[in-house]
């Protein structure tokens, strides 16, 4: 009997202890927070989220933090994970002080609509740093404010090739659709993967299709999206047929629909695949990994247009790769200055590599490798940069568009069925 009573008393005491400890803990924690604030007052800190794997970003961020006089909490998050993490952070209002965002309407619009980002006009003006950005490189939104600064130069879709494998085949980089088909056949006969493609994330296949359409007719997408033409018209249909041709002639590695982007890239870097379709942002990383073995060409003339008629850009002027500042940041002004100065420092790094920057820079271009020089020349000659379609669509339409294109690559849809569904999907998204 006494034991049971003791048990109830003990349980009550334990419960009270838990409650009181919690209260006490809160008090201690509050005190702790105050202390932290006191420490933070001595040197403010800025948290930065970046999805770009290039070590240049970390180095530039550290240098900028020292320049601005803040402690930097740098967090690199793998690209695909980042897309989810930033969506959740936006919805939950749990953003870091400064964060990078992908290019394209589907990524930029939610950030602006969330009303969680701060206008940068005041600091751009007061520091005079705004004047360093070239014309039209700072996006002014409808309310007249500038909410972001660039975090990357304009990058485009290019075709890389493995020189060693190309030499083994005794072939040269393809210049036309016929060349490409012949090269695919030649590579297959030798047991070499012609084109490595990461189908799991879907974007590489999507961009290849964009490029094939642009090679058919440089203005096809613009005309169709504006209602002056249809997505079932010849350029779209012919490009879709080219995709099915590529699949049926085993242009891509076995099981490419299940291959992750990085796994597919490894095949190219490790001399298993002859060609690799990717962004120009990968020049540095691929050059470091492959050295002189890396080859580059502007995408072949697979249709009526020549190779300098257009290229596919990863960003558009209204929605570039950007740095945003959280308007709830405890050190808002410092965070804004940090973001602006980081953007300019990154620009210096691009200029140093010999690439066209988005701001004025006193940095001189260092010697660049042969491939990067060729790319810079080609870009200079290219008449139009067509923004990737995905970047011009809303998040849900963009994802559905990529799902649809995946079905074309997977053989679930014929070219005719695909373009018909494309017309329905993109027309309803207008």
């Amino acid at each position: 009997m006494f034991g049971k009573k003791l048990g109830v008393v003990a349980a009550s005491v334990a419960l009270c202890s838990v409650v009181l400890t919690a209260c006490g803990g809160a008090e201690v924690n509050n005190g702790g927070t105050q202390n932290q604030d006191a420490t933070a007052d001595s040197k403010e800190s800025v948290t930065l989220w970046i999805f770009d794997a290039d070590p240049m970003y970390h180095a530039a961020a550290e240098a900028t933090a020292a320049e601005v006089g803040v402690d930097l909490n740098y967090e690199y998050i793998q690209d695909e994970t980042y897309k989810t993490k930033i969506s959740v952070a936006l919805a939950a209002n749990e953003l870091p002080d400064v964060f990078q965002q992908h290019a394209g309407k589907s990524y930029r619009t939610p950030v602006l609509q969330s009303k969680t980002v701060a206008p940068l006009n005041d600091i751009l003006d007061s520091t005079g740093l705004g004047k360093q950005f070239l014309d039209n490189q700072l996006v002014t939104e409808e309310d007249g404010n500038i909410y972001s600064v660039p975090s990357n130069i304009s990058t485009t879709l290019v075709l890389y090739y493995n020189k060693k494998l190309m030499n083994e085949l005794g072939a040269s980089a393809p210049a036309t659709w016929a060349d490409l088909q012949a090269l695919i056949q030649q590579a297959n006969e030798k047991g070499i993967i012609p084109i490595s493609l990461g189908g799991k994330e879907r974007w590489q296949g999507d961009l290849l299709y964009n490029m094939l359409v642009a090679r058919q007719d440089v203005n096809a997408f613009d005309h169709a999206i504006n209602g002056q033409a249809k997505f079932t018209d010849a350029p779209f249909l012919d490009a879709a047929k080219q995709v099915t041709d590529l699949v049926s002639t085993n242009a891509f590695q076995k099981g490419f629909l299940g291959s992750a982007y990085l796994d597919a890239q490894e095949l190219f870097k490790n001399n298993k695949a002859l060609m690799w379709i990717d962004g120009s942002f990968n020049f540095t990383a691929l050059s470091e990994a492959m050295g002189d073995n890396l080859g580059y060409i502007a995408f072949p003339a697979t249709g009526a247009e020549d190779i300098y008629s257009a290229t596919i850009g990863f960003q558009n002027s209204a929605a570039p790769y950007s740095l945003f500042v959280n308007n709830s940041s405890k050190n808002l002004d410092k965070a804004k200055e940090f973001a602006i100065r980081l953007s300019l420092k990154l620009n210096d790094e691009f200029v140093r590599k010999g690439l066209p920057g988005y701001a004025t820079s006193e940095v001189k271009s260092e010697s660049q490798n042969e491939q990067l020089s060729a790319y810079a020349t080609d870009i200079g000659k290219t008449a139009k940069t067509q923004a990737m379609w995905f970047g011009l669509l809303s998040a849900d339409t963009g994802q559905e568009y990529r799902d649809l294109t995946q079905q074309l690559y997977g053989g679930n849809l014929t070219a005719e069925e695909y373009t018909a569904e494309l017309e329905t999907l993109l027309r309803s998204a207008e």
Partner: protein
Amino acid sequence: MERALSNKKLIALFLVPGLTVFLVFYFVPIIMTAYYSLHDWDGINPMTFIGLDNYTKMFTTDKSFWQAVWNSLAFLLVGVLIQLPISFALAMLVSRKMKGRKWFRNIYFFPVVMSTTMVSLLWVKIYDPNIGMLNTLLDAVHLSSWTQAWLGDTKTALLSVLIVTTWHYVGYNMLILFAGMQGISEQYYEAAKLDGAVGWKAVRHITLPLLSDVLRICIVLNVIYALKTFESVYVMTNGGPLNSTTMIALKMFQEAFLKQNFGYGSALAVFMVLECLIIAWVLNKVLTREKIEY
């Protein structure tokens, strides 16, 4: 003491903390999710009430929803009809008094302690059709015709994922069943032996009936796990190729966080909760039987 325990107010007082935690962290989110499911909402802008439109879309126009339901059922069936019998056989094996049985037990259980992400990444490499171990092995033993684009082909992707989840969790069920077998007194087997019930007969008439409660728990756990599967599919295939491995949980994630259709994602979440509750309830009803005592 007895007076204290019969005091309903005091009992209620003791229940308050637990109940509060349950309400705040379990019940309220479920209600909120159900509420969101009746709206068109991107997670940022104001919600628009659309009634049952999300559910109508789910059941009528969303083709990949039914694919996801079918895939969940495939996971469920494999979990119950294949994984559980294998676990049972392994539990029988390691409960035998043989040399090294502890070692075997640990080996079979080892995959369970590995994280799902790690296991999935490991198998992605094994399955890789171009540089993976599985196809290389098949080539080495002159079975090149058996090589496949395991995770890249709609015909083999689901099966490939199912093999991994079976391999990963078979040890978990084995351990539960093994613990149950240890609770069966040796006397029953000795008595049965005198009546000539050895081998499969002993399993059929002694082990299985006395393990029925444990088996029921294993079945319910397997079913709930199957219906909630997410990580393994997300890492290995991301639901592809062409939705051939998509699951309700993955679809919910994609709708809410990639397409920013929080309303529709919430409707999928509600469906998943109801699906789990109904199937678990039915299983409990079907599998509940009188306790057997010898």
